[in-house]
């Protein structure tokens, strides 16, 4: 059984509880143990970096140091948490001066970070560490015929980390294919949902969300799959506002990729946190039931 240090992040405590639940259920089914970091703190999302860079690295550093102490790779299901942890770890490893500053602060909590924690997005655990075959093997209720728009969003693929393809990733599509669904050609799969602009610049955010929903509708998707709690919240909870603002009539379910994988594995919907949506996902559920 493979083991990871798990950093759920603030959103998964409540707003995106269903992402946390479906993550725990599906990973357990696949023989992966996610051990939650004890006493983790907020990673700062995009906001700390607006105020103070050193403070931002310190707060992320605390979580990295705790994972290092546990001796496992760190897994984050939220794309912003992932990006912050990944790059902070890389910067601390290559910049001794920065690391000294941060470690001086971490000392106040009896911690220190040597740069040895590998950071992974939850989706990497599925796509790379487990692999498609392993997932296919567990599928009992293939989502045959379900047209899914695989929405990557931003920080799972950007900034660039190595030599990976940042303009045409396909791992999300492959994952959806592995559970029997049909990934559609989603033109806006890498476009921004607006993140926290929904609070600070609503006009811009609503227009971005509209563009994404329109792109998914144009590709005739029955559901948009996400890998980030902020993307999910923006696309789902503000869909009503988009309709009000632009006179559109979108009613597109927005689900976490782990919920779709869970359904395909025959995990009961309640265990996947299904039932707390603003937009009903019943139309999606019928695909998983068909094969029963």
């Amino acid at each position, binding site marked *: 059984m493979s083991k990871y240090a798990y950093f759920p992040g603030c959103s998964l405590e409540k707003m995106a509880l269903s992402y946390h639940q479906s993550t725990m259920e599906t990973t357990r089914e696949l023989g992966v143990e996610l051990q939650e970091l004890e006493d983790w703190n907020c990673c700062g999302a995009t906001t*700390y970096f607006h105020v103070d860079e050193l403070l931002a690295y310190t707060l992320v550093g605390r979580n990295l140091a705790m994972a290092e102490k546990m001796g496992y790779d760190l897994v984050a299901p939220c794309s912003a948490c992932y990006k912050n942890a990944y790059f902070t770890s890389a910067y601390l490893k290559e910049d001794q001066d920065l690391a000294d500053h941060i470690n001086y602060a971490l000392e106040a909590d009896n911690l220190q970070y040597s740069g040895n924690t590998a950071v992974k997005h939850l989706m990497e655990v599925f796509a790379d560490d487990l692999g498609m075959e392993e997932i296919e093997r567990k599928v009992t209720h293939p989502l045959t015929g379900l047209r899914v728009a695989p929405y990557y969003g931003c920080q799972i693929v950007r900034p660039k980390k190595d030599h990976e393809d940042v303009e045409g990733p396909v791992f999300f599509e492959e994952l959806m294919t592995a559970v029997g669904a049909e990934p559609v050609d989603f033109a806006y799969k890498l476009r921004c949902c607006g993140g926290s602009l929904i609070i600070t610049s609503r006009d811009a955010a609503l227009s971005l969300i509209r563009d994404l929903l329109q792109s998914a509708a144009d590709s005739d998707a029955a559901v948009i799959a996400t890998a980030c709690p902020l993307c999910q919240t923006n696309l789902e909870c503000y869909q009503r506002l988009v309709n009000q603002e632009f006179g559109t009539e979108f009613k597109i379910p927005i689900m976490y990729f782990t919920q779709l994988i869970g359904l395909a594995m025959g995990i009961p919907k309640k265990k996947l946190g299904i039932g707390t949506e603003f937009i009903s996902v019943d139309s999606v559920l019928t695909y998983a039931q068909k094969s029963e």
Partner: protein
Amino acid sequence: MADKPTFSEEVSNLLHASHGNPLTTCIQCGTCSGTCPVAEFMDHTPRKLIGMINADLKEEVLESNTYWYCASCFHCTVRCPSEIDIAGLMYALKRYSIWNHTYSEEFIGPVFSETFVKSILRSGRSYEPVLAPSYIFSYGVREFLNEAHTATNLMLKGRLPVLPPRLKRSENFKKMANRIIPMGEAK
């Protein structure tokens, strides 16, 4: 007396921890502006803003709304042929304008960011209900009602927390933050 740094140098110095090239390597190709999904809302496109920084138009840059519209999607950064970390630059300008309090009062971004950071330093984790006052009163009546509607729905679906979170090693956490930004007793 030593020469005063130019505004471009000042801004570049704020980018110490990011790994892109200096702003002076910008070739004004406009790939960033063509890529940016919110460029149409900005008073100056990213390309123009970089040109303005390099031309030392400090006052105009600090009055701009450009960086407060940046959602950190990093698409400009990965496409820049000069390998400038443009999204990192937007962060640097946000910090500069918060420290010097040069931002326009009508922007919600700076106040929201400061409230967010203060709330994290208090409790260690994000808690949506304490963040709302930082922006909700800047909204018009219709937006206010819409936000209340969304919040009510979230509550009914059990998606809003009732109690604020708290770390176990909360005292250590505050001491740690104080070693970076001395805030007295972070209240």
